[in-house]
């Protein structure tokens, strides 16, 4: 019989303790910890893997990134220019296929050439819009020298 009342007393006590804790949060609006995403954006951490970016002007066209990519997300085409240097005419990264493994970043022999940006908002309506184009464009055969203007990397088409 004492066991019966003891059980009942314990149940009431523990229920009231729990409800006392929840009501503190229930009536106090300052306890909210939600950051409302589109208005408040969190700064991504230092080693955040966002969208891939290529600094095409210092790219040597070695194709190490395209060869190591496990999902074949990188399409890379190179030609030799008049200085016998490899020129990446096509450098497409398919963000829809990228798995953000970071193998290409590790494989890249040039310091700070292929790296992850902190950008993570690049959703699009079609898969084609998700491909970012970094290539320098085809070299016309009759052109002896490439003008400085054309060496500028194309702007990313997707925002």
């Amino acid at each position, binding site marked *: 019989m004492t066991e*019966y009342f003891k059980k*009942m007393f314990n149940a009431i006590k523990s*229920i009231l303790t*729990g*409800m006392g*804790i*929840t*009501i503190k*949060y*229930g*009536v106090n*609006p300052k*306890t*909210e*910890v*939600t950051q*409302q995403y589109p208005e408040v954006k969190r700064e991504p951490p230092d080693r955040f893997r966002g969208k891939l970016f290529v600094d095409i002007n210092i790219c040597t066209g070695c194709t190490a990134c395209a060869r190591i990519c496990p999902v074949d997300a990188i399409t890379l085409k190179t030609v030799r220019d008049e200085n016998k240097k490899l020129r990446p005419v096509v450098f497409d990264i398919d963000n829809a296929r990228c798995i953000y493994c970071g193998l290409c970043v590790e494989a890249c022999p040039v310091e700070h050439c292929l790296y992850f940006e902190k950008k993570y908002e690049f959703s699009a309506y079609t898969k084609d819009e998700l491909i970012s184009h970094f290539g320098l464009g085809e070299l016309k055969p009759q052109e002896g020298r490439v003008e400085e203007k054309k060496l500028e990397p194309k702007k990313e088409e997707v925002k």
Partner: protein
Amino acid sequence: MTELINEIITRLANAAPIIRLLVVIAIIIVSSVIVLAVALLYEGLATYAERKVAGDIQARIGPNRVGPYGLLQFVADGVKLLLKEDIIPFYADKWLFIIAPYIVFTASFAAFVPLSYSEHIYIANLNVGVLYILAISSVVSMAILMGAWGSNNKWSLFGGMRAVAQIVSYEIPTVLSLLAAIIIPASLNMRDIIAYQSGGLGIFRWLIFNNPFTFFAFFIYFIASIAEVNRTPFDIPEAESEIVAGYHTEYTGMRFAFFFMAEYGDMFVVSALATTLFLGGWQIPFIGNIVMPIWLKDILEVAVFFGKVFLLIYIMMWIRWTLPRLRVDQLMELCWKYLTPFAFFNLIGASVWVLLLHGKGVYDIITGLFVH
């Protein structure tokens, strides 16, 4: 409302019988549409309130995107549910499957009828009001079993059987603790019960303060009524982590919404019953016999009634977001080993109190001491 209808009918005494019939039918349809609209608005806002309370308690914000403060969230939810595909399983018992949500909703909606919202605002003045509510809300358990059986799904059937076992078991402490209160005004009429609780600053003659037994009966009733409406510490009929969604696993779109709205309707009804029987109904506290216009008094009374009901509903939500779900055996143990014996004890105690003190409450006895 009844007086208004009687008035119209007596004025039409000389009209042709067919016109009188049509007028009566029109009155019935219009009044039920008004009540249905109010009930649906309440049910929509209750789902919004539930999500906001959940957000507050879990240190979140809750819905805040649709409309100001997210107030139109329930409209968006309703539109979404209406646009959903209406799926009836191929092997379902179609007749039972289709009719079950309507019966659940009708039963929970019909329980609004005998409630008294203020001295002059009520739908029907039933002399068996409390009995009517208890009877009509028992239909819900039958309809739940119909839907569960008709779905031809093992989760649904388990959920339905659990629901019936739970509702039928918890009906006993509910009714016994209500009886402990009813024997004092000795009436089943909601308006008589509220009228009995007038006076005493509008608080101290509430039946909950009438004697120690009704005080405990209120808490037993409140716990048992949470189980009656299948809310969280007792939500084993629809326990998501065990049996998907219980008896409404196979329901989609508006048919599911009927079950959902019936739950919130039942919450209102059990809270209103607790308010009427234990917490003085629409008696305005502290103002005594101040003379005021009838319309103002009615508005205040409605506000007081809804305030008390919403306070009880808030407590139900607070309990829901605090306590974990009981196991089936724990649920039955709570009902049969704890609530039912105490409810019987309360009933006997309250009966003896009424017999010995001729229905006088604690407040009457204390004020009686000062008078002599």
